[in-house]
């Protein structure tokens, strides 16, 4: 892979990574600060974490966010996988360009626009159809839309590189196309589905802007509660909560990355065996 990067490049890389991680590490450090003054180090303590367990507002919001996250990631994985199959396996169908555009647009669309437009839709739907009431349902519907885009792109690339010969063999042996897909290709792309489930979960758990728009009275997700507190400045219990969320998300992403890498390695191994 060419010559080694120069010391200058390596130092820029290190500084860049340091910039990305330093604030998070400092935040986690301060969450163990015994002092209520955020600028003074008062010794090691886990009291802020224990206080979180007695804060009903935060616990309710956390529970709501987790529930939404599970519903959203399950829905997004189903819809996103179908969209990926459609885009990879069916090279020509009416609306293919439209579907491609709708899958890619949410990734770059500013959240504030997506949030406003979806709110306007929900208001009009409620007015005409009497459904959906703003809260859990509308947040979940809105999150599924943008998570589906992420799932589609992840699964799409995995599906495109999957070997189809097993599936064709199954069809030659008399399986219908659906059966053949479920028996051969689905197990191959399963890790990609699992990792996109985890990524959708973290995206849904993190979202503030879209949730704030489409939510109604009484339904506050965790980021919404955090935002209303953070506007008032740095506080030690938010430090503890933020550290917990960052660690949870970090674990999700690491597991997702591990799953992706393992399948990638398996695929390379299979390819090598096939060549032999």
């Amino acid at each position, binding site marked *: 892979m060419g010559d*080694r990067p120069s010391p200058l490049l390596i130092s*820029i890389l290190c500084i860049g990574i340091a910039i990305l991680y330093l604030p998070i590490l400092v935040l986690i450090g301060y969450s163990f600060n015994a002092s209520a003054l955020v600028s003074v180090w008062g010794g090691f303590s886990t009291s802020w974490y224990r206080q979180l367990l007695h804060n009903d507002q935060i616990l309710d919001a956390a529970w709501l966010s987790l529930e939404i996250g599970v519903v959203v990631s399950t829905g997004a994985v189903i819809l996103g996988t179908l969209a990926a199959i459609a885009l990879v396996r069916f090279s020509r169908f009416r609306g293919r360009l439209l579907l491609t555009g709708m899958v890619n647009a949410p990734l770059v669309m500013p959240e504030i626009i997506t949030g*406003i437009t979806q709110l306007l839709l929900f208001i009009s739907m409620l007015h005409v159809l009497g459904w959906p009431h703003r809260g859990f349902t509308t947040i979940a519907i809105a999150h*599924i839309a943008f998570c589906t885009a992420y799932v589609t792109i992840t699964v799409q690339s995995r599906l495109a590189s999957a070997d189809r010969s097993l599936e064709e063999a199954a069809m030659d042996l008399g399986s219908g*196309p659906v059966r053949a897909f479920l028996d051969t290709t689905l197990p191959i792309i399963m890790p990609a589905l699992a990792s996109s489930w985890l990524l959708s979960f973290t995206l849904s758990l993190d979202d503030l802007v879209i949730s704030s728009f489409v939510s109604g009275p009484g339904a506050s997700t965790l980021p919404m509660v955090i*935002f209303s507190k953070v506007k008032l400045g740095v506080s030690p219990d938010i430090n503890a909560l933020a550290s917990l969320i960052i660690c949870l998300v970090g674990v999700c992403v690491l597991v997702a990355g591990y799953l992706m890498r393992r399948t990638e390695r398996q695929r390379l191994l299979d390819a090598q065996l096939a060549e032999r």
Partner: protein
Amino acid sequence: MSNGIDAGAEVTARPRERGEWLMRHGKWFIILPPMLYLLVFFLIPFAFALKISFADTALRMPPFTDILSISPDWHIHLTLSLGNFQYLFTDEVYGLSYIYSIRTAFFSTLICLAVGYPMAYAIARTSKSTQSVLLLIIILPFWTSFLLRVYALEGIIRETGLLNSALLWLGIIHQPLKIMHTTLAVYLGIIYSYLPFMVLPLFATLEKLEYPLLEAAADLGSPPWRTFLDVTLPLSVPGIIAGSMLVFIPAVGEFVIPTLLGGPDNLMIGRVLWDEFFGNRDWPVASAVAVAFLVLLVGPIALYQHYSTKQLEA
């Protein structure tokens, strides 16, 4: 095949034919669910925003007038109000916030590019196993909550934060620097939050660069900086554009960063939209702001789509 010259062929052919029927019509069972979902809950909402941007404010729920009405004698009346768009031109806060957002996003994108390019270049030149570890390190903050990362940055740059404490302790400054609630804080926030968006697409193009090409240039006597300018840089243009758009587009619409880190004069479109909606409750004007904003973004979004699909095909 349907003639069935010998029985064996027909038996094996039957599932195939059923398969062909499924392939021809059954594919809609796969295509339609995601297609309809995204159509109803992602694309059609834009039509609603467009519709409401032509309505007038009304004291009812939903707080705007219908632009389509049917009179008792079954005539359909279309009442389009251009007042909201005119209003965007009369009140200078909208024009100023558009210009301010674009300027902020533009310079943040340039700085992200200046920092992100060497990072991506360095990652692309390490061994495959180091690459995957480094990429994971870059991707991890990419997935971590924006809100929490911006909040974490506040811990560094506020008056009693780590940066000021360190500088005071080193004796470089004698008064704490005021960074919070300034334009500088908004820039720092955007660069810090969006740097991974720049590095990832850049890495994707730089990784595919053919190193024999660079070696050939070196063998022919080209100094490293010439090789970089003549070979590497032109070949990485798709990555530069994809990464820049991935930073620029969401940065223009940024709401959390100017609200938490900026001061009252850091009025970006995202903040104006939010206030119009939740503060003034003027939905038609907010919709008009959103529509005008979207029109502004059509160019950059098209540019991004073009170069990112190009990158996928390469």
